[in-house]
């Protein structure tokens, strides 16, 4: 049986070769009556057309949801959703939350304790007591 080496394939990293935006859809729910939706309504009228034009890869839905606070729901490729309530926010605040949802992935938020997060193994190897300078007594 001839032995053949495992062909190494380049590890795919989103953004190295191609970049696929994780956010596939954004739902904007507003209210015609509630005062907490004033900023959202102003954002939809004035800034959302510009945002939608600049992000043609995101599907945007706008629909009313009466007697509720305004909310933006982001849908991601991994199937998860992230809602953010934007009650009593200014149009600029709503825009910031929109961009935050656009830049996020569907993964849950985790606390990062390490300074570096990398898929590459360590260059100098993990320390062991058996490798290193000899102990002289």
């Amino acid at each position, binding site marked *: 049986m001839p032995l053949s080496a495992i062909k190494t394939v380049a590890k795919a990293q989103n953004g190295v070769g191609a970049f696929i935006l994780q956010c596939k859809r954004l739902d904007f729910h507003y209210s015609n009556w509630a005062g907490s939706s004033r900023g959202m309504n102003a954002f939809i009228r004035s800034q959302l057309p510009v945002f939608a*034009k600049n992000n043609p890869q995101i599907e945007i839905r706008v629909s009313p949801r009466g007697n509720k606070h305004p909310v933006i729901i982001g849908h991601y490729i991994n199937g998860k959703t992230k809602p953010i309530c934007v009650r009593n926010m200014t149009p600029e605040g709503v825009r910031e939350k929109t961009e935050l949802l656009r830049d996020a992935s569907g993964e849950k938020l985790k606390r990062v304790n390490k300074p570096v997060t990398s898929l590459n193994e360590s260059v100098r190897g993990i320390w062991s007591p058996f490798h290193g300078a000899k102990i002289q007594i």
Partner: protein
Amino acid sequence: MRRIPRSPRSIALLSPSSSILRPSYHPPATLCLRPAPSPFSTSPKCRAGIMSSYSSQRKHQAFVRKWQKRLLGESEPIGAHVDPYDATSPVRIAPEEMGGEEEVLDEEQGVPGEDGVVRGAYVPATRGEGLERVGGKKWRAEREEEEMRELWVEVMGRDVGEPDSFDIPTKIPRDPQVLGRLFHQAVVEVYTLKEAKQELDLARYARKGRYAVPDWIYETSVHYSRKLGLELGISEAQKQELLKEIEFAPPAEEVLGEETLTEDLDEELEDPAVEQLEEVVEEVVEAKEEAKAEPEKEIKKVQKKSFDFMANRQFPRSMIKDEAAPAPIEEQVIAEPVVIEAEPEPVLEVRQPAEPAKATESEVIVETATSQPAEPAEAPEPQIAIETPSPKPKQSFETIYSRVPLTDPALKFALAKRLTTLTGHRLSDPTLHTTTTLGDLLTSLLATAKPKPATLHEALKLQHKELRAQPKKSRAQLAREGLRRKESLLDLPNVVVRGKKEGLRDREREVGRWKVVEYALAERGLDVPGEGRRGAKRIH
């Protein structure tokens, strides 16, 4: 009882103690046995009786008959010698039997119908059921209440339960042309008052600005110059007529009409409610009389009063009476020609006057906003004649009034208040602060009057419609102007805008599963759920 002749001598009672209790004509018991003198007492007390002055009935009758003849004439009255209680007495002759005219009221007479049968005639009632009850405290109170209510309606111009509209019209116009005409009316009224150096606020006059507006107001030309300001193209007669209409105050006698008060018996006038009304009316009369001498003081007085319903009269009594007779159209009302000084500068554009009948009016010069450069300092003052805003597009209103500055706060406020009264649209304070010309004021009014969309969905559709109506410019042109192309949300391919809350039906329909759901439900004999609360069950 036989008549006993009266004795001329005074006879005292023989037994004073017993005769005190008995009547004087009965002789005392102790005196029955012997003929006693007349038992009658002719003391002055008894002599004063009526019948005591005549000796016989005959003499009395003669005396009465003598005076009857003197007073009534020779004919003997019917009831002179007859018994009125006798059934056959001639006094009991009925008027219809006598042959005299019988008074019949019109209400009692019936109206003959087409078939000849008389209907509606008065039929005397035999029972009291169903008849109107007249009289009594309750009836009187109801009648007074009704009269007071009628007085209120006549004075205030509205019913008792109706809320006060505060001079704001119920039908609020939104058509720009109608608003333009009302704006022009307000300008003419306020500037006329300004020229006459009168109070600018029309609501401070007795009529509160409610009068029959003459038609020539809407066709009045306006003339603006930097030195003289805005001048109206109306004659002195028209000006006086307008001032008279605006400042008209009904005299006190007309305010207190006799027919407004109850003209019943004296007992009704003594009623405390009516007396209170009269006191209030007297106070108003005094206020009005003082107002005639000093109009400014009248305003302060009226404001201090807690309730003065007689002052808010919509129309004076004379106007109500003259409603039936229309005012004759006078040819002198036509505006006299407005003389505009000759201009040495070239005429850029000439427009035809609004009414060709006014051919005596001098030429009207209108400068276009874009083509007219800045005037040099040494050139004479340009007099821009502005045309009347008759049915013209919106652009011409702004062009006409944009040159007239509006710096006087009192004038601006008077105009804004009059516009609120005429149109029902209230201009906000920040809007008023930012307006500097009449054109700005008109633009603000039109913007305020523009109907606003009730929902965001309607606003987006309106925005989409407006953007589509705009002429398309190339990117290069937009870049030169420093603008970016405005995109409508509804035009973008990655945007879906819904006017209603998204439901299961919408989501399933997008992926094409709804028809499968409907088919499956129909297969099992189940109702297809409707949208909203209709249908068997709401599916989320």
